[in-house]
């Protein structure tokens, strides 16, 4: 049910490929509340990425609804309060959702600072001085201010991912989506990225994280979703999911990863 501070409501979300023979998402219903740190777990191929990427429409769902800011964003057009039909502003929507990818996806032809200021300048219309000031403050927070003029290739994986996180934060999103942000990292760099995410969570950022870091899920998450075969099989607090798993698939999954 939608609560007062619900941010995104997902209803019966479906993403089918090849005439429905592949059901990457097979009817997922849940909602994301403001301040939630939602952790999505599940075996590979279970639809976690598809779910996350549907939220900011990197994937076009083939069924169901995603209500964000009162609008069903799975429809190309909708009626506004005055009953007028308006086109969905996908770019505007995406600004409000930051996304962090497994492979960082920094822009290799730009310095770290340029990576940071591009969207604030071109999309939000900030002037360079303003955008750089904000970017430097963010880089400072993740201890990378001294690398502002470096190119992505000169950074370690962990540094790149920290930059990717603050690059998304520079757009001041309402929610941050993480798709396995530590899976491409060498083990010794996982911690520094998780630390940044933990700090974000403490500050009250709404987050949806697909991750295999069960420690993170337990410690920081307030809700854990377990997906398998495109379905949301179980949802609960970390305690419920990890201490009292109900679904056999979840038990089986946990026995393999814990």
């Amino acid at each position, binding site marked *: 049910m939608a609560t007062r501070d619900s941010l995104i409501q997902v209803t019966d979300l479906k993403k089918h490929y090849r005439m429905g023979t592949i059901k990457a998402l097979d009817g997922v219903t849940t909602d994301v509340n403001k301040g939630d740190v939602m952790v999505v777990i599940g075996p590979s191929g279970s639809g976690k990425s598809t779910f996350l990427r549907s939220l900011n429409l990197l994937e076009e769902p083939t069924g169901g609804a995603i209500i964000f800011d009162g609008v069903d964003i799975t429809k190309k057009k909708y009626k506004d309060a005055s009953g007028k039909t308006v086109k969905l502003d996908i770019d505007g929507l995406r600004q409000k959702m930051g996304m962090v990818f497994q492979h960082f996806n920094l*822009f290799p032809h730009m310095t770290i600072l340029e990576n940071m200021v591009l969207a604030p300048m*071109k999309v939000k219309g900030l002037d360079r001085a303003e955008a750089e000031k904000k970017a430097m403050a963010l880089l400072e927070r993740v201890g990378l201010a001294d690398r502002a003029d470096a190119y992505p290739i000169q950074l370690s994986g962990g540094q790149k991912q920290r930059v990717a996180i603050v690059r998304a934060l520079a757009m001041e999103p309402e929610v941050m989506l993480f798709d396995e942000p530590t899976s491409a990292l060498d083990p010794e760099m996982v911690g520094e990225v998780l630390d940044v995410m933990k700090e974000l969570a403490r500050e009250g950022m709404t987050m949806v994280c697909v991750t295999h870091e069960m420690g993170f899920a337990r410690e920081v998450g307030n809700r854990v979703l377990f997906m398998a075969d495109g379905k949301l099989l179980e949802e609960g607090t970390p305690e419920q999911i990890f201490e009292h798993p109900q679904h056999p698939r979840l038990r089986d999954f946990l026995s393999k990863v814990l």
Partner: protein
Amino acid sequence: MDSFIQLSNFPKIAPYAKLFEQGMLVTVLLSLFTVMIGFVLALVLALMRLSNFRPLRFLGLDRDGHQREGGVLAVISRFNPLSFLATAYVEILRSTPVIVQIFIIYYGVFTLVELPSFQLFGFIKFDRFFPGVVALGMNSGAYLCEIMRSGIQSIDGGQTEAARSLGLSQVQNLRYIILPQALKNILPAIANEFVVIIKESAITYTIGVQDIMSAVNAVKGATFIIIEPLLVATAIYFCLCFPTSKLIAYFERRMSRGDKR
């Protein structure tokens, strides 16, 4: 019997040195303009081919506005007229001889369109030069389009996803993220196309463009000597092309080293 090459013929063609000099200038200018036109055309064609313009998209939506998963309507709804046109253009130009294209442009298009007859630099006949550039540029555009397209497609899809998820529009993504990276990758290929055009442009003497080959022809007509002017032309073409390709290869190596910084 006379030998294949007669050294005594070279002094006889020496008075025509100026023709070769002018021919060389024409060949270089022709090739430069061709590559420029080809580049712009190729960029437009490549963007058309990769565009997501689907005017019949609405046919693919079901009653509650979601994308249909399959069926005839879903196929029709994916039809992209821009991509279709660009593909047809590229395939037609790549599947027909350049000389046919040049003749169609010169005898077809530019007999309908009257060109002003003035001379660039006092000797380049514009009404021959211009159709030559247009025809070669159109041809080159078709080939460069494929280079451009693969250059754009070689950029990791994650780049677009990151750009779009930051709120950049499709056009901003192309302009700030994709094209700068793609163009850097294909710069050597474009420069190589310049070398190819230097050689291919020899064919434009057939419509009266005063390039290096036309100098050969003029000397032949005036002196009935053919092999020696051809050798001169060979030397000029080689001196234009060989160092240029070596230079390109050098910069290519240096650039790829820069990437591994």
